């Protein structure tokens, strides 16, 4: 078991109760997809796992270690093992693709060397290799903000690959991309999951993508888990429970 989340609560300073006691386990090699409406707590959940957000109560176990209360150096060491990809890519816009990818290695590079922009030949080689994995090695010297949305997301994936992550989180990675690009991005995640054995937890909106890529699904509604099972178990009744009575499924291919 790679991850175990127990009774996780998150209350924001403005009083929003985003997670209301979420518990689940993730086995190594799974492709777990989290679904739910906007505001159901999906993003909060992912950010609590890699501690971008401090959970209010509950615990997160990563590789058998309670990481909920880690601080400083120890926390940074854990963070280097968990990659994350965001909806809005979150690249450093004015820097080259290569620098963006190298930034994924910052946790393992000395402060002084990283400030001087000095990376060892092995790290550079690794950066090119992860760019090749997502098929845009030829763009290495180009400025990140000159790329298209799909290309930027691929750079973001390459950046997270630099961490050699045991666990890869993806927060609605295709929500701001067109359908065709969405599928190609999802295929990169699939390949990372299958070929490298990286465990993936991914927030998604479209059920067609969920059915195609997920090995298991969790559904959140108002901060609670309302469904846990196989992608094909989500029938019409479940769909209405998760998304509300008025919702209707749309296809994306």
């Amino acid at each position, binding site marked *: 078991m790679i991850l175990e989340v127990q*009774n996780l*609560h998150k*209350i924001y300073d403005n*009083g*929003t*109760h985003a997670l*209301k006691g979420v518990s689940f386990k993730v086995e190594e090699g799974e492709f777990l997809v989290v679904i739910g409406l906007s505001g159901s707590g999906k993003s909060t959940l992912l950010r609590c796992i*890699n501690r*971008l957000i401090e959970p209010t*109560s509950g615990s997160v176990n990563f590789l058998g270690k309670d990481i909920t209360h880690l601080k400083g150096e120890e926390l*940074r*060491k*854990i*963070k*280097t*093992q*968990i*990659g*994350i990809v*965001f909806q*809005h*890519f*979150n*690249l*450093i*816009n*004015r*820097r080259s693709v290569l620098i963006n990818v190298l*930034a*994924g*290695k*910052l*946790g*393992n590079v000395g*402060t002084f060397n*990283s*400030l001087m922009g000095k990376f060892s030949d092995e790290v550079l080689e690794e950066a090119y290799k992860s760019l090749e994995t997502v098929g845009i090695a030829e763009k290495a010297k180009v400025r990140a903000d000159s790329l298209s949305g799909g290309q930027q997301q691929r750079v*973001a994936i390459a*950046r*997270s690959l*630099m*961490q050699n992550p045991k666990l890869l989180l993806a927060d609605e990675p295709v929500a701001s991309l067109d359908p065709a690009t969405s599928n190609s991005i999802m295929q990169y995640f699939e390949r990372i999951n299958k070929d490298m054995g990286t465990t993936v937890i991914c927030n998604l909106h479209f059920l067609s993508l969920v059915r195609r890529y997920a090995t298991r699904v969790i559904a959140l509604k108002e901060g609670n888990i309302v469904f846990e099972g196989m992608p094909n178990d989500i029938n019409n009744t479940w769909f209405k429970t998760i998304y509300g009575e008025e919702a209707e499924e749309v296809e994306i291919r």
Partner: protein
Amino acid sequence: MKTAELEISPHAKLQRSKEKQNKKNLYKAVLLDSFFVFYSILVVQRAIYYKFVLDMRSLPFSWTETAIILVISLLIGSLWALSHTSLSCRLFGIAVDTKTTKWTVELFGWFLFNITFIAGWIVTKVSIVQLFSAQGLDGAGRIFGSLFQPQFGIFDDALFAMIETIYIALLATLISIPITLILSFFSARNLMKENKFTFIIYYILRLITNFVRSIEPLVWAIIFSVWVGIGPFAGMIALLVHTIASNAKLYSEAIEGIDRGPVEAISATGANKVQVVWYAVVPQIVLPFLSFTIYRWDINVRMATIIGLVGGGGIGTMLMQYQGLARWHEVGLIVIMIAVVVWIMDYISAKIREAIY
């Protein structure tokens, strides 16, 4: 498990905070209404009645009288605000929606505006007669005439003074850059709010820079000309101090306005705080910083001229000397030179700022 503590209904919470807000607003309305009444009585009595109607030179002042007016104002103000029909109630959004409110607000608002304008007119001693008196127009004609026939004999002296001014401004701007850079990171809320200790540093820095900025460079020049003696050095330090305080605010606001996304992404890779700032914050703020700094150089050239008037060196000091001797032809040349240099600086700095974006 602390479920009981967690189960506060957000709706009830919202309701409670709204009631609290309304109560707070009522207190504010009482104070503001009392102030409005107090202000009206004072303005009508002192500016309009004493100064204008009675045409008194020096106004009588007594603490008891003022205190009585204050008490009366507080009484009227409180009653007015508590009736929820006053101007302040309307401003704070707690007024009842009736015709009385509408009339009170409109009439009293109009009344306040008018007495303020009239009092301002009286206090500034506005006089159309003096503006167009024959003697006055004659003097103006003399000065304008001299200004437009500049004395070119002092051109080389003026040029040197002008160069001195530009260097004063340039040096003040250059020295300010590293100091401001460091200060700005420590006075950016989003970087400092995470723990108590850094937040206290942030707070104290903001306090100091706000204070320093609120004092005009002209006053700083006076202070430093006593400290280090009259001359360009005093002017440079005065500009430097003010530049640091102003730009620290602008820089830190640029830092506060950055996109959080990259910061999140870089810190999620396990990078430490210094690396996060260098990789996610700095690339986003380099251009705004550059732009502010160039603009500030442009402002400093203008300020350096003004500072010269109180002994900060450069062209301003020269202007002051010739003005004191009433040699208007020389003053004319200096004024024209200042105008040209300011115009050129303005143009260059705008062009550079355009180019880097």
